[in-house]
Each structure stands twice: as C-alpha cells, then as structure tokens.
C-alpha cells in the first residue's frame, strides 16, 4: 500500500493549487470494497455531497458509499451542509459482472470539490485512479488530478504571483 501524499500547508494567505490542497489515494480493502483516503490541507475543506465516484471500466458499479460523520456548516442557500477537514476515509462497496481474475486493472474516477477558508472555492476535481483487481493492495493514482480545464504555466504569463 502506498502512503497518501500529504496535503501541503500553505503560507498565510497564499492559495494552494487544488492538486496540493486535496490529495487522494485508494486501495482495495477486500474484493468488494475500495478504500479512498483524502488528505485535506489545513484551512481547506471538502463537501460531502460533492463527491462522485464512477467506473470507466465496463461492468463495474459502485453499490454503496460509506462516509464518516463530517462537520455541519450553515449555508444560506442549501441549509446545513456536511464538510470534511484534515482527512476523510470513504468506503465504496462495489460489484462487477466481470470475473475479477479476467481483469488486471480497472479505473475509478473520483470527483471531489472543496474550498479554502479564505473564501475561495475550486471547481470539481477528478482523480483517475487505476486499480488492480483482486485482493492486492496495489493502487496507483496513475494520473494526477484531471482538471476540467488546462492550467497555464505561471512563467511568461501576464500575471505573476
């Protein structure tokens, strides 16, 4: 099993890249359960209702999700919403029509969305997790965060930081 990359603490008032603010790793807990570990940087949080999980490998399906209790936050529009800070472990109960031994890997798209306490919110962030079937614990966040946009390089831009 690979240790989750740590979410980075930001210097005062400096906004982290979304890939640094929220990191995730996953492993097969058993043949039918995926364990996702999100690390959340200090002063950042994720919304429970904004998580989304889907397989891109045919035949696989998320049957149930198990979340720990989060912290309730008052929202003027949506009422109380549940948020997570520091870390959150989510368990996905999965089913498959395929025989496990017939597949070497399958892919899970894990989407999350969060904000920083300074009043900034990031667009939904999708991680593509390529996982090995069976009971092995090899789990690779093979691709980095797959953002819904292409972030320009910082150098050479009209804007500096």
């Amino acid at each position: 099993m690979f240790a989750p990359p740590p979410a980075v603490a930001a210097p005062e008032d400096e906004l982290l890249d979304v890939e640094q603010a929220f990191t995730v790793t996953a492993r097969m807990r058993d043949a039918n359960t995926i364990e996702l570990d999100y690390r959340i940087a200090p002063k950042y949080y994720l919304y429970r209702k904004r998580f989304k999980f889907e397989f891109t490998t045919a035949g696989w399906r998320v049957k149930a999700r198990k979340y720990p209790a989060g912290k309730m936050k008052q929202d003027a529009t949506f009422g109380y919403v549940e948020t997570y800070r520091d870390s959150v472990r989510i368990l996905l109960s999965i089913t498959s029509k395929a025989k496990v031994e017939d597949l070497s890997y399958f892919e899970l798209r894990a989407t999350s969305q969060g904000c920083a306490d300074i009043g900034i919110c990031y667009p939904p962030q999708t991680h593509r997790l390529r996982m090995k079937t069976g009971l092995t614990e090899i789990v690779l966040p093979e691709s980095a965060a797959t953002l819904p946009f292409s972030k320009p390089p910082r150098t050479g831009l009209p804007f500096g930081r």
Partner: protein
Amino acid sequence: MLAVIALWLDQPDRRGSAPPIPLPAISPGAFYASTFPDLQQREQSLGQWPQDWLLVNFWATWCVPCREEMPLLAKMQAKYAQRHLKVIGISADQTTKAANFAQNNAINYLLLADESRAISFSQRLGNLDGALPYSVLVSPGGAIVWTHAGPMDGPALDALLASQLPGGG
C-alpha cells in the same frame, strides 16, 4: 493591438502583502469577441456594451463565497447603473442550474453560464488558480483595469467604482 494598461489600482487582494501584479494582457478585441449563453440559452457577446464599464464576476452555485457576494454585486449594479456600470455574472455551472438558482434569488444583473468554458475564460483574464469567485473590471474600450480573486470587500469595491466611473462629480 494589445492594450497598454498603465492603470494600477489598489487591489484588495487576498494575497495580502504580495507585490502588485500586472494586469492580464488579453486584447480588447479578444475580450469583446467572447460570447456566452444567457440563462435562456441565447448567446450574448461581451462586445455589445463597448461604451460601458463591465464588472465581470465569475461564480458558481457550488461556491458559497460566490453566492454570498451576489447581493453586493446587485447593490453595485443598482447604485452605478446610471454611471454606465454593467455587472455580468458568468457561471461555471450548467445553464439549468444557474437558472434555477436565479429564479430563487433577486439578481438584477445579467447572468451567463457555461460549465465548460467559464473557468478557462477566467484564466485568460488572470485567474491562475482557476478558483472562484474571481472578478475583473473592464473599462469602455475593453481594457481590464482591475482584477480580484476571492470575495470582494464592499466598501473597497464601492470606492473603486466611485473613483473610476464617470459622473461622480
């Protein structure tokens, strides 16, 4: 031709003591050529108000700080409409989501929405982090004269508009 922007305004930037940052170099032509659908799915060109000051605010329904600052934007729209201010909210939501939100909230300024292009367009206007809310002030002629990442401070925004818009006496 790229606009040469010499105007450096005091930016109430969330990054505190960071040195002033140059304004985005998107040309007025490129800015005005951009179009987004409104909540009735009609394409609206940002170039249809070349004589007005545009306060363009990028937001989303999933962004609580964005929603919290919308009353401030509505207030500024009402206060400065006669001084040629047009507030435009560009949502990073699906149009239907933004429309549902608008139905339940008193918003007196134009709302546009494009889930796939709003963030990338904001990045062209200097929003390096791609985070929301993000706002820019565009002068008549299409030059970006001010940008701000994060929630805006009401008195600071009011003072900025009072100092920049014509007809202030």
